[in-house]
C-alpha cells in the first residue's frame, strides 16, 4: 500500500469507519505483534499489548497529522510497552507467585533454537536498547528518526544501537550450555 492509499485509509478511520480499522489491523497486526513479542518474549503479553494498541488507535487516530504513519504507530507501541514494563514490575512485586507461574508457562512454549536464543539474548539487553533495536527492525525507523524520537544526537543513537546489536550477536553465539541462568 502506497502512502496515498494509506492516507486515504487513515482518513476513513478518522471518520470512524469500522471497515477501515479492519484493514489497518490487517496491515499492521503482524509487525506490531512481532515488535511486542520480541520485546516481551511472551505471546499473551504481546497479544494484550497489540489489542491495547489498536483500541488506543481508535481514540488517537484523529491526532495523526501526516508524516510517517509507521513511525507514529510504533512510537505509540513503544510507549505502551514501556507502560506495560512499569505495570509488570509493580505486578511482579505484588504477585511474585503469579509471575513465577507465568514464567513457567512462558518457558514451556515450544520454540525453535534460534528464536529461543534471541528471546534469551533480548531479555538480557537493557530494555531501552532492546526497544531501540526492535524499533529499527520492525518499524523501519532510520537512525535519524530514532535520534529525533529519542531527542538525542544521532551519534549517540548509533553507538547505542551498535553496542546493543554487538552484544546481542555475541550472546546469541554463546552455546546453550554456557549461558548463565
Amino acid at each position, binding site marked *: 500500500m502506497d502512502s496515498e492509499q494509506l492516507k486515504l485509509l487513515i482518513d476513513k478511520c478518522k471518520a470512524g469507519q469500522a471497515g477501515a480499522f479492519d484493514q489497518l489491523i490487517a496491515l499492521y497486526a503482524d509487525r506490531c505483534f512481532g515488535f511486542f513479542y520480541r520485546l516481551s518474549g511472551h505471546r499473551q503479553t504481546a497479544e494484550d499489548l497489540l489489542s491495547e494498541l489498536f483500541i488506543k488507535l481508535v481514540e488517537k487516530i484523529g491526532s495523526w497529522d501526516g508524516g510517517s504513519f509507521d513511525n507514529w504507530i510504533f512510537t505509540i507501541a513503544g510507549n505502551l510497552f514501556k507502560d506495560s514494563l512499569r505495570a509488570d514490575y509493580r505486578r511482579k512485586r505484588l504477585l511474585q507467585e503469579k509471575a513465577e507461574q507465568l514464567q513457567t508457562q512462558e518457558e514451556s512454549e515450544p520454540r525453535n533454537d534460534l528464536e529461543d536464543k534471541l528471546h534469551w539474548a533480548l531479555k538480557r539487553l537493557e530494555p531501552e536498547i532492546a526497544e531501540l533495536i526492535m524499533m529499527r527492525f520492525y518499524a523501519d525507523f532510520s537512525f535519524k528518526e530514532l535520534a529525533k524520537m529519542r531527542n538525542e544526537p544521532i551519534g549517540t543513537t*548509533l553507538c547505542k544501537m551498535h553496542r546493543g546489536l554487538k552484544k546481542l*550477536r555475541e550472546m546469541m553465539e554463546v552455546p546453550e550450555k554456557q549461558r548463565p541462568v
Partner: protein
Amino acid sequence: MKESYEDIRKILEQFMNTQTAGQMAKDIRQADALLSAVPAAKTSEETLAAIREKVHCRLAAYRVRNLRIRIEKYVAAVAATILIAVLVGVFFRTHQPTGQNQRPLPLAAASLWNDSFAADNDPVGELTTKVEQLTGQIDTVNQTATQWLEENSGLTVEIENLEKIALNADFWKG
C-alpha cells in the same frame, strides 16, 4: 525508512575513523541479518478477530461519547445564549433613565367615561353638599367678624389717637 549500510558507515565516519566506522557498520549489518533469520511469531486469526471485535465496540462507544459531547456542547451554547439574553434584558431595564421605565397613566380615570349616571352622580352630590356646608360656615364667620368690628370701632380710633400723640411729642428724639 532505514538507511543503507553505506549511509550508516558515512554517518559513523563523522564521529570516528574510517576503520572503526566500517567495522561498526559491518556489526550492524550482521546483527540485522541475524534478526531477519528469526522470523517473528505471527498473531493467530482468533486473536485478530477478538481485536477487531474490541475495536468495533470501542468505536461504537466512541461515537456515542462524541455524540453526547456534541449534544452537551449544543445545550451549553443554547443555555449560554438564553442566559446572556436574559442578563442583557435585566441590564437595560435596571440602567434606563428614571421616568422612562414608568408607564404613563391615563389622564382621566376610566370611571369618568362610565355611562352609569347613578354611579357618577353619587360622589358629586356628596361633594356639593360639603361645599355648601363650608360656604355657610364661612359666611357665618364673616358675619360674626363684621359685627364684632362694628361694635368695637371706638377702640380702633383710640389706639390711632395715642399713636399720633406719641409721634408729636418727639419723645423718641431723646
